[in-house]
């Protein structure tokens, strides 16, 4: 009855899925270079691939396109720090 929007690998007679990560995978968070969108997208795609998901070039291009816009936001922490600094001086 539901819209079939999402990829599934269901068990028989159940909507439970086998966990992709039976054991927790504690791993390093990459040092994303937020000035290099192409590299950032590639890093994310690599991780997705490592976890067994789809990971083609199309996905990477898609990510690049989206991240170009997304990552242009101002870093709130930097703004806050600067604001505090200025405030103290005046």
């Amino acid at each position, binding site marked *: *009855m539901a819209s079939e929007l999402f990829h599934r690998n269901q068990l028989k007679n159940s909507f439970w899925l086998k966990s992709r*990560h039976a054991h927790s995978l504690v791993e390093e968070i990459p040092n994303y270079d937020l000035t290099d969108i192409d590299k950032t997208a590639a890093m994310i795609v690599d991780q997705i691939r490592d976890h067994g998901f789809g990971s083609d070039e199309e996905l990477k291009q898609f990510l690049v396109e989206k991240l170009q816009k997304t990552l242009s936001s101002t870093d709130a922490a930097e703004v806050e720090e600067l604001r505090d600094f200025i405030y103290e001086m005046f």
Partner: protein
Amino acid sequence: MFRSYRQIIAYDPLLGHKYVPNLHARIRYGRGAYFIETDKNGFRNSPERLTSNFTVLLLGDSYAAGDGVANADRFSDLIERDFDCTVINLAVNGYGVDQQILAYEMYKDRIPHDIVLFMPHMDDLYRNMRENRVGKNRLGENIFIPKPYYNIDGNQLVLKNQPVPIERPSLKESAPTSKETRAVADALNKNKNALKHLVNRSFKKHVVGKLSYQELNSSESREWRLMNKLIDRLKSLSASKHLVIAPIPYNYVVMEKEPQYYMPFFYAHEDKRTTVIDLLPALQDNYEQNQDRTYLPLCGHFTGITHREIGHVLGMRLTEYGVKKRSKHISYASTSTEKYVLGISCYYHDSAAAIIKGGEIIAAAQEERFTRKKHDPSFPANAIHYCLEEAKIDINDLSSICYYDNEALSIERILNNYSSIPHSKKESFWSQAEKGIARKLKLRTQLRDVFDYQGQLTKTHHHHSHAASAFYPSPFDKAAILVVDGVGEWACSSIGIGRGNEVSILQQQDYPDSLGLLYSAITYFCGFKVNSGEYKLMGLAPYGQPIYSDLIKKHLIEIHKDGSIKLNLDYFGFHLGEAMTNEKFDELIGGPRRHAESRIKRREMDLAASIQLVTEEVLMKMMVHAHELTGMECCVMAGGVALNCVANGKLLTRGPFKDIWIQPASGDAGGAVGAALDYYYQRIHQGDRKADYVQQHSYLGPSFSDQSIKGFLDTLGLQYHRFNNKAVDMADWLTQGKIIGYFEGRMEFGPRALGNRSFLGDPTKPQIQSKMNLKIKFRESFRPFAPIVAEDEMSEYFETDKTSPFMLLVHPVRAAYRKQARENKIDNDDMISHVNQVRSELPAITHVDYSARLQSMNNVDSQNPAIYALLKEMKKATGYGVLVNTSFNVRGEPIVCSPEDAYQCFMRTEADFLVLGDYYLIKEEQPDWSESEYWQKEFELD
């Protein structure tokens, strides 16, 4: 510049101000931080000291007190480790020489000493002339802080302004009066941003440093006449002691090699028991070598390097008095090999930080408590700062920081979602998603920029974090694990197994088939806020009939016998980046959603009852499936749905497991605990068994000492009293129908106030529920209140023998204590008439279905002995060892964290008493409370 959620400096009637006594605080400074410790007298002296037979009493201001560096890194402490002497530091931030002398006068006979080391800063020439100094209050507003001062009357010093006035007028109220000054101030204010590039060392040195001080070269100036008199007084007070004067020059004099006019005036005081030391040559050499590392960049105080240099110079001069140089420097550096792990959850909702050591949760707190924004999802800078303070470590001492979620998989799910929806919906979907994605990728950058963190940053998986938070702190060595929430990465519900040192997930259900999102969708439809109002829906359920449950199961959710589900997305909008429910959902229910704050009608009550029934059915099936899958006798639970305490009570009494333990911080905040534990057990823990630790309580947040509370009360000049017999007095007030705002010990971690940040009332009083709802919490009157009950009386009043220390289980009131309400069936929209009926001997905590959300309390130190003592007094006074407990906040406000938050909340409500540790305040004695804007607008309604 210096930031702490704690009060560091407090009012003192004789000295103007001092540090809060017995303080251990971490002060944020720029991107770094430093620890300060104070002694019982309110000065910066650490409790762990080297002892010697030679004691120096140090007088000074912030330079000698060591603003910007830790106690151990100041010259006063460094001298002790290189020379065989003790240095008692009586210097305080902002002191003039007048205050320094008064401090000496106050303590000279109490602290045996051999030498007085007096270190005036040149700025003190001007401070001495003033009756106040400019400072900031905790809101960051500039204020005048009164101080004692001396005038010269004839040839005599006359002390003024003592006792020091408490009032601290705002600078706004004392704005410049001359037209020219006001014009300059206005121009500066308007051009703050344009001028920001000038705010650097050069600006400070050339503009601030040289504007004044022409008086320095004239001994006849008013400033020097007063300084000389004050030094004469100090010499007189120190009488038989030797006095060493070591003036501290302005920074620009050091950096620019400016002529120092001032030393001759100090040398004029030299005599057989007064020595003057010129620090300038050593400071200038130090600057030559270290340049920008000489002074702290934001405030201009000494860096650790400069403290070392001054310590060396002064220590060598002390040898002239028989003080021996130690054969080697004695280091205070920690030799501890303990490994600490910090867990972080953020960027969704309820961001938090937690720190663990050896598998034990040392501290945990939600960011909302510090920022005062409920469910704050932002980077938890304040919570991290607190965790480090509690552990007494620097951030770069951590073994690792572990994030509770895998950002790549979350992004993958979002992109998968994006690619699956109709083209017309994509733009709105992405506008919702993009901010979340940007934030997730900036965690490392934020840790570096805010904390200068250079260490390891790891991540785990969302449901593994929840699972770890439930299993490792539980009392079980092995257990099934059930995690149910909205969504994390892909997972919406998971079944796993915990055994010894290992947690593994066996099965999961993926987005969008989420029981949590279904519950949130109906929360939204009923006019409550998603990720916040779900517990209101649970509280509303007993008023309704589950007439929609079949409709829900027929159209919205397909439930398999193993508890797995599938949502029919045709009725929802969350997967499209739109509202939780859509028009088709409206048609199904027979009308549009209820608008927030409009009257709750029969439909919402019935919907609440229906989704509660469906939720319980699904959870029970999941639990049976988990039992069959794992073969375990016990189960642990986490995830936001595990906060549904109505369902939990039924799962415990009717479910397949012998015992259940639920992580009290089951929502995303608890993910911080799980992430840290997951890292610990993967990378640090040795052996196959769990650490010998069980989470007995949730008191994992900041505490505030009685001295700190007194400092707060004194600084505000509030009228307060100290308890003689706390439990007896409180029970007396409660039985008079009074409401108490109760603030004690460490703040709770998780969504529930469990007796340390609570409003308390007498449950035998029928009017208490409506009073608490309408006059204390300013919230919907249908919402029930929870009881705290003495563990040894719990089974007497309630149908359970299972303790509930975390208020996570709902159980019925025993029949023997029930009373027949006038009307039990609610078949109209008039909910209020049903709310106010007496249903038991404990009416204020008995819900319309005769249930109660229990918190049991025992008498062991690991729980809450103070509340237990109060329960016993309530037993004597009322016959019932029971209290009404609700969180210490008003609607939309996070639970109070500090004494300041508590006082503000208390004054905004009609609560009668405020208990702050060993002190209490009576509402009638407090000054009028007025706020410029209607304060309730401050908090977004939940």
